[in-house]
Structure formats: C-alpha cells, structure tokens
C-alpha cells in the first residue's frame, strides 16, 4: 500500500509543479461547452435537452488531453523503466498513476461540471446525479485512457491515434452516464445505469492494469 | 421472372442487400489475391537485388 501511496504522491507532486499544463484540459472544457450554445441555440429549454450530452462528450474529450503526463514523460526520462524494474508489481504502479491522473485531471473537470451545467439551464436538483454518474464513470474512463497511452507510449506522435483507440471504447460509458443523468433530470430512478457504471468501474480497475502493464512492457522493451 | 425481380415491390431493399454482400465477398477475394501477388513481386525484387553482384567494400591497394 505504501508503494501505491508513494507513486501516487510523486505523480501528484509532479503535476502540481506543472499546474499550467494541468489547466489546459480545464480551459478546453470550458471553451468547448461555451461554443455549443453559440452554435446551437441559446433557448433555455433546448439547451437543457442537449446540455447533458454536450457536457458528457466535452468531459470525455477534455480528459484525453492530459494523457501525455501519464506515461510518456516517465518513459522519456527512463523513470518508467526504473519503476518497472522495481519489486513493486506493475499493476500497483499503474493503479497509482491512474489514481493520481484522476485526482489531478478528472476531478477538477467534474468540479467544473455543476457550474457549466447551470449555464445550460439545468435544474439544481439534477446536479448530484450528474456528478455521481461522472464519479462512477470516470475511473473506467481513466483506465481506458491509460490503456491508450500505454499502447502508444513508444510512438513519437501517438497523440492522435489514442483518440481513435479510446473514444469508441468509451461509448458504453457515455450511453449509460447520459441515461442516468437524463433520469435524474426528469426525476426518475437512476439506480440501474448507475449500478452498471459502478460494475464497469470495478471490472476496469480489476483487469485494466494487467493489460496496461503488458502494453507498457512491450512499449518500453 | 419479373415477379421474382420485383420482390413484391421491395426489390430495392432485397437486391441492394444481396448486392452489397456479394460485393463484400468479391472485394475480399480480390484483396487476398492482390496482397499475395504484391508480396510475391516484392519478394522477387528483394531476392534479385540481394543476388546482384555487390561492389567490394575494400578498395584494392595499387
């Protein structure tokens, strides 16, 4: 457990030192969610209808932006190899890095969502379900992004292809996350999709690190 | 025969579906053949270039 904590803490500290880089996904998120009402329609009712989808898709796209920090920086300066040579199992290393990434990149995005949701005229009562669904869906999202980053870690310009790999796999998260949020919006029970999101998260966190570790081993050799 | 081709008025749907499927199968047949021929040609070129006499890398001393 202490290895997990140490690696996670180190990644958080590194991210803290480059806060301007960490701000990029947040700014992207704000800009994209601002562009949609300009492009679609400022009508409050219509905005409420599209708001759920727009916010979810924007969260997905913005999370992709910060994935470089997951493995590439460490692969470039050799610390990834050192981590893999250490007695700490790769799965633990991977989980620690994913946890740090989620904390520093995705949690701030989720924190911004209620504010932006208000700009989409979404009722206050729907916000807890939306945030809850995001909290349940984003661990799986982090695992998928980490998988994409690990598969392309040895590529010089892997950035563009990661989107191609990861985004189709996030479709189920999008479907059930927006369904849960829609239920919350219309005061219907959202337990079903939320449970499913939780199940995805459990599955991804349990098995994802194995695949990610294998991908890192291939990428670094 | 005309009744067969008309397919009860839904000819467009039935024949386009069968047509697309046929096209997909034919495309895959062609693709397999093309990649095979291509690979053989490249292997031939590779083999003849490695058989070509190479200039000696050591210069003769006069």
């Amino acid at each position: 457990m202490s290895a997990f904590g140490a690696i996670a803490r180190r990644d958080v500290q590194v991210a803290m030192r480059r806060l301007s880089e960490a701000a990029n996904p947040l700014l992207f998120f704000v800009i994209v969610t601002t562009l949609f009402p300009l492009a679609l329609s400022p009508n409050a009712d219509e905005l409420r209808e599209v708001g759920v989808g727009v916010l979810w898709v924007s969260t997905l796209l913005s999370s992709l932006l910060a994935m470089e920090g997951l493995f590439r920086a460490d692969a470039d300066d050799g610390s990834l190899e050192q981590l893999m040579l250490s007695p700490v199992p790769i799965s633990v290393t991977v989980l620690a890095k994913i946890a740090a990434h989620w904390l520093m990149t995705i949690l701030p995005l989720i924190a911004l969502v209620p504010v932006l949701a208000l700009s989409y005229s979404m009722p206050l009562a729907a916000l807890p379900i939306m945030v809850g669904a995001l909290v349940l869906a984003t661990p799986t999202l982090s695992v998928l992004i980490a998988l994409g980053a690990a598969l392309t870690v040895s590529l010089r310009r892997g950035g563009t292809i990661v989107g191609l790999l990861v985004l189709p796999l996030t479709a189920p998260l999008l479907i059930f996350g927006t369904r849960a949020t829609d239920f919350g919006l219309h005061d219907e029970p959202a337990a079903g999709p939320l449970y499913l999101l939780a199940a995805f998260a459990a599955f991804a966190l349990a098995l994802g690190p194995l695949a990610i570790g294998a991908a890192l081993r291939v990428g670094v050799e | 025969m005309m009744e067969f081709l008309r397919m009860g008025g839904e000819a467009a749907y039935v024949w386009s579906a069968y047509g697309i499927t046929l096209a997909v199968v034919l495309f895959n047949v062609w693709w397999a053949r093309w990649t095979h021929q291509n690979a053989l040609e490249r292997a031939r070129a590779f083999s003849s270039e490695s058989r070509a006499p190479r200039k000696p890398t050591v210069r003769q001393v006069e």
Partner: protein
Amino acid sequence: MRLPRWFHLLGSPPFVYGLAGRLVPWLGAIAVILLVVGAYWGLAVAPPDRVQGEVYRIIFLHPQVAYVSMMAYVVMAVSAGIGFIWRIKLAHAVAVTAAPIGATFTACALATGAIWGRPTWGTYWQWTDPRIMFETLLLFLFLSYLALRAAFEDRDKADRVSAILAVVGVVNVPIIHYSVIWWNSLHQGPSFMKLDKPSIAPEMLTPFLIMIAAFTVCFYWLLLNGLRGQIVERERDTRWVKQLVEGREA
C-alpha cells in the same frame, strides 16, 4: 510431454503456406456452391413471410454476416493472444489477415441491417439499439487494430501492441450476443442460438442454416487465401521464399 508433430508443423510458415495453398481451392469451391445454393433457396424457393413479405429474405444474409464478423474478431483476438503469449509469428499473421475480412463483414452486417430495418422497423438506424451500437464498436475495434499496427515501424512491436488491443476488445463479442437478452431493443431475442427448438419456420430454417455454413466456409477460405500473402510478406528474406519466387520465374 511430447507434442505431436503436426503441432510444430503448424508453427512453420512454409508448411502452413503449402497447406493453405492446397486447401484454398477446395474451400473456395465449397463456399461458392453453398453460397449459390443458399442464395437461390432463400430467394426463389422459400415462401414469402406472413408478416414481412419478401423483404424478410435478408434473414439469409444479415444474421450470417454478423455472426461471421463476430467469429472473425474471436479468431483475430485468439490468434493475436497466442502470438503474444507464445511468440508465434504465424499467429500474428493470422490475426492481421482476419482484421480486414472482419471489418468488411462488420460493415456489411451494419449495412444489410440498416436496409432491412427501414421497411420493418421504420428506420435505417436506431441509436438506442444495443446490438447496433456494439456491432459498430466492433467495426471500430477492427479499424483501431489496423490503425495501431500502422503506427509502428517495427513489425514485432506492432504485432505485440495490437495483440493487447485485440484481446481487450474481445469482451465486446459476448456483449453483442447477450445484448438482446439484457436490454429491450428493436432486435428480437435469439431465434437460433438458444437451447430449445429454433422458433423459425422449417422452410426458412434450411436456407438459413445453409447460409451460415456458406459464410463460415467463405470466411475460412478468405482467411487462408489472405494468410498466404501475409506469410510471403513476412518471410521475404528467408531461403524458402527466395526459392519459391525463383521457381516461379523459371
């Protein structure tokens, strides 16, 4: 434990190249015969449906092509996994060959499904139908596999990295199959792949099954056919390939 000789032979590229070469004409003949017989039976012999009229005849194409697309993915994932774990290059060759076949068959399944959906469900596409969505995801998985391979210059690395992607994605295949049981959707429940009697009329069952056999044989025909090109490509600098191409020149 001594492994049987054929086991080792299956890892030998020249052996598999020769074997595939001998099997391909037979598989091709069987596939063509089955396809022609099945298509004729389905189009001309089987009676029109009580509900759907003539357009139901797409039932002799769409489920079969979709089934083959899922089988293609499993073949790709299993062989990529075998290649990854046991470092057998031939296994990766099989995976690479299966990918474009699978992708085109998946696209065909989606297209024939859309064409069938318009007169029967009233719409070409239904975003909330889980089977359509997960089959589309399958198409993306095939394309991602090929795209990821293309990004790597070193073929070995490309093989191993894309193998991980292939294996991770295989979880989609059972999801496609069970999606109609788990969720309410436009797709009806399974009428064939279930444990009791098939709920389809017998005059329609025969061409249905013939087409399943036809497309399955067709898939393996295409796979072995494409595998030969892939083997030559990978083994370009070996003696047996040099002899092969020189022999052809003579």
